C-alpha cells in the first residue's frame, strides 16, 4: 500500500525533525554554558510563537494578543509557586490549564468578530489583562513583578541551579514533547479542517462542519501551549513581570512567526531563534536601532519573502528540484 509507505515516511521525517531540534538544543547547551538563562527564555518564547502559529498559521485568525495566554500561564504558575505548589511539572500543568481557560475565553470573545474588529479585540484583551495584573498587585506583585518563587527540584532530584542547566534541559524536553504532539494534532482530521477553514470557511460549512467549535478548540490548544511557555519562563527566571502579558510580547511573537514562516511549526522555531539571537546582540547596543531593524525586516518580508524564511527555503528547494519532481509525476 502506498499509503502506509507515505505514512511511515512522514513519521520518519517527524522523528528526524525532533532529533534535529534536540541536537540544536543540546549544541546550545554545550556551546553557550553561560547563556543558558537566555536560551531557556528562547524556548519559552518558542512555545508562545508555536501557539500563535496554531491560530494564525493553521486557522487564519490574526491575533495581536497572544501574550494574554502566555501571561495567564506565567502568572498562574508563579502565583501557585509562591503559595507552596513547587513541583515544576505540576507548575507547568497549572500554567497549561490557566492558558487553556484563557484561550477558551479569548476565543469565545474574538470569534464573535471578523477582520479589524477581531484584531482590535485581541489587542484589547491583552491590554485589559495587563491593566488587571497591574492593579491586582497584592496577588501579582503589580509593576514590581511577582517574585519569591522557589521551585522544588525537578523530579525531586535536579535542583534549579544558578546556571540554569536543569531549567534549560527541562525546557528543551518540554519543547520536544509539545512539538511532537502538535505535529500529531496538525495532521489529525481536526488539523485538516482547521487548514480548510483558513482557506475557505464557506466550503467547510457546505460540508456540514460548524466553524466555531473547531476554532474554539484550537484556541484552547493554543492557550495550553502558550500557558506552558509562560509557566516555563516563571519557573526558570523565578520572576513574573507585567511584560509577560503585554501588547509588545504579542506583537513580537507575531513578528517572529512571520519571520520564520506561518503554518509550518518549524517556521515558528526558526523565527524565534533568529529574532531573539539578533535582539540579544543588537538591542544590547541600542534598543531603538533594534526597533528600526525589526521594522525594516518586516517590510522586507512583506515585499520580498511573504512566506517567511522557511516558506522561502521550501520554495527554493522546490525550484531546485523541480525537474526531478516533474519527472516523478
Amino acid at each position, binding site marked *: 500500500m502506498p499509503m502506509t509507505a507515505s505514512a511511515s515516511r512522514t513519521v520518519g521525517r517527524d522523528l528526524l525533525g525532533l532529533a534535529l531540534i534536540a541536537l540544536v538544543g543540546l549544541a546550545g547547551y554545550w556551546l553557550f554554558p553561560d547563556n543558558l538563562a537566555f536560551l531557556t527564555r528562547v524556548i519559552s518564547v518558542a512555545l508562545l510563537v508555536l501557539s500563535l502559529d496554531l491560530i494564525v498559521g493553521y486557522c487564519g485568525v490574526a491575533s495581536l494578543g497572544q501574550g494574554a495566554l502566555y501571561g495567564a500561564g506565567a502568572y498562574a504558575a508563579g502565583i501557585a509557586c509562591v503559595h507552596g505548589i513547587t513541583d515544576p511539572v505540576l507548575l507547568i500543568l497549572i500554567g497549561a490549564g490557566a492558558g487553556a481557560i484563557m484561550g477558551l475565553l479569548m476565543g469565545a470573545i474574538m470569534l464573535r468578530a471578523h477582520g479589524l474588529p477581531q484584531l482590535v479585540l485581541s*489587542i*484589547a484583551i491583552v491590554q485589559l489583562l495587563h*491593566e488587571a495584573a497591574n*492593579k491586582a498587585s497584592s496577588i501579582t506583585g503589580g509593576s514590581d513583578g511577582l517574585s519569591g518563587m522557589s521551585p522544588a527540584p525537578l523530579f525531586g532530584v535536579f535542583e534549579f541551579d544558578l546556571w540554569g542547566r536543569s531549567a534549560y534541559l527541562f525546557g528543551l524536553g518540554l519543547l520536544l514533547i509539545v512539538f511532537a504532539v502538535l505535529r500529531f494534532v496538525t495532521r489529525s482530521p481536526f488539523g485538516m479542517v482547521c487548514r480548510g477553514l483558513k482557506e475557505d470557511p464557506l466550503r467547510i460549512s457546505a460540508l456540514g462542519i460548524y466553524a466555531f467549535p473547531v476554532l474554539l478548540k484550537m484556541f484552547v490548544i493554543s492557550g495550553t501551549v502558550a500557558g506552558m511557555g509562560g509557566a516555563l519562563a516563571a519557573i526558570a527566571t523565578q520572576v513574573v513581570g507585567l511584560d509577560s502579558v503585554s501588547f509588545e510580547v504579542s506583537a513580537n511573537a507575531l513578528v517572529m512567526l512571520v519571520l520564520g514562516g506561518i503554518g509550518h511549526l518549524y517556521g515558528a522555531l526558526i523565527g524565534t531563534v533568529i529574532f531573539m539571537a539578533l535582539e540579544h546582540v543588537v538591542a544590547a547596543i541600542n534598543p*531603538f536601532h533594534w526597533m*528600526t531593524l525589526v521594522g525594516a525586516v518586516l*517590510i522586507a518580508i512583506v515585499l520580498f519573502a511573504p512566506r517567511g524564511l522557511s516558506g522561502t527555503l521550501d520554495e527554493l528547494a522546490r525550484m531546485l528540484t523541480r525537474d526531478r519532481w516533474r519527472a516523478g509525476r
Partner: protein
Amino acid sequence: MQTVFSIGVDALAYGMVLFVISIGLSVTMGLMRVVNLAHGAFAMIGGYIASYAARDLGLAYAVAVMLAVFGTILIAIPVERLLYRRVYGQPELTQVLMTIGITFCVIGIANYVFGPTLKTIPTPESLRAPVSLGFRTVSAHRLFVIACGAAVALGLWYFIERTAFGVKLRASVDNAAMAAALGVKTEVVYAVSFAVAVGLAAFGGVVGAELLPIEPYYALRYMVTFLVVVSVGGAGSIPGALAACLLLGAIDVTARYLVPDFGNFFFYLAVILVVCVFPRGLMGRAQ
C-alpha cells in the same frame, strides 16, 4: 460639581483629539480596506515637526502647525507610493505586518533623530490663559482643541457631502469597481484621501500634544487607541467615529479621574463590550 465640569471638558477635548487623528484612518480604512497600524506614526511625525519648528526654530504656532501638516504629507507620499500600494487588496495579516514594520521604523528613526525625551510644542500666550465662561473658567487650550475637532468634523462633512470630490469618495467607498466603471479615477481619490488622512493625523498630533505627549513610543502607545476608535465607530463612518471618540474619550477620562489606579482597564473593557455587541462597529454597514 467642579469635578464633573472638568471631567466633561477634558473628556470632550480628549475625544476631539482622538477624532481629529483617527477620522483620516477611518476614512482610508473604509475606502482602501487597509488595516493601517502606522497612522499614529504620522501624527507623531507631525508633532515632531511642529515641536522642532516652534521650539527650536522659534516660529509662530500657526506656522508650525502648517509646516507639520504639509511636512507630514510630504513624508507620507513616498511611503504610500512605495509601501502601502504593495499591500492594497492583500490579506489582512500582510497589511498588519507592513504597517507595524513602518511604525517600528518610524519609532527607531524618531529616537535616533530627536532622542528619547518628551517633546513639547510651545503654545501661544493666548492659548495658555484660562478663559472665563461666566460661571466657570476653563483652559483656553482645551477650548481650542474642542473647536479644532468641531471644525474638522464640519469641514469633513462639507467636503464629503457637498463637494464633487466627496461624491466620488462616497461612491468609491461604497463600491470601488462600480465607481471606476463610472469614470471616477479611484487612484486619484485614494491618493487625495490618503494625503488628507495623513494631514489630519499630523494636525491632531500637534494640537493634541498636551493630551497625548510627543515621544518616540507615541506611535505604538496610541496605535491601539486609534484602531479601537475606527473599529468601534465602524470604518468609513464619520458620525460613527465621532460617536466612538466621544464615548471612549468620556469613559477613559472619567475612569482616570475617579479610579486612576485602574489605568486603561475600563477603556479596554468598554472596547471589548462594544465590539462584542456591535461587531461591525457602532455605525458600520453590513457587508
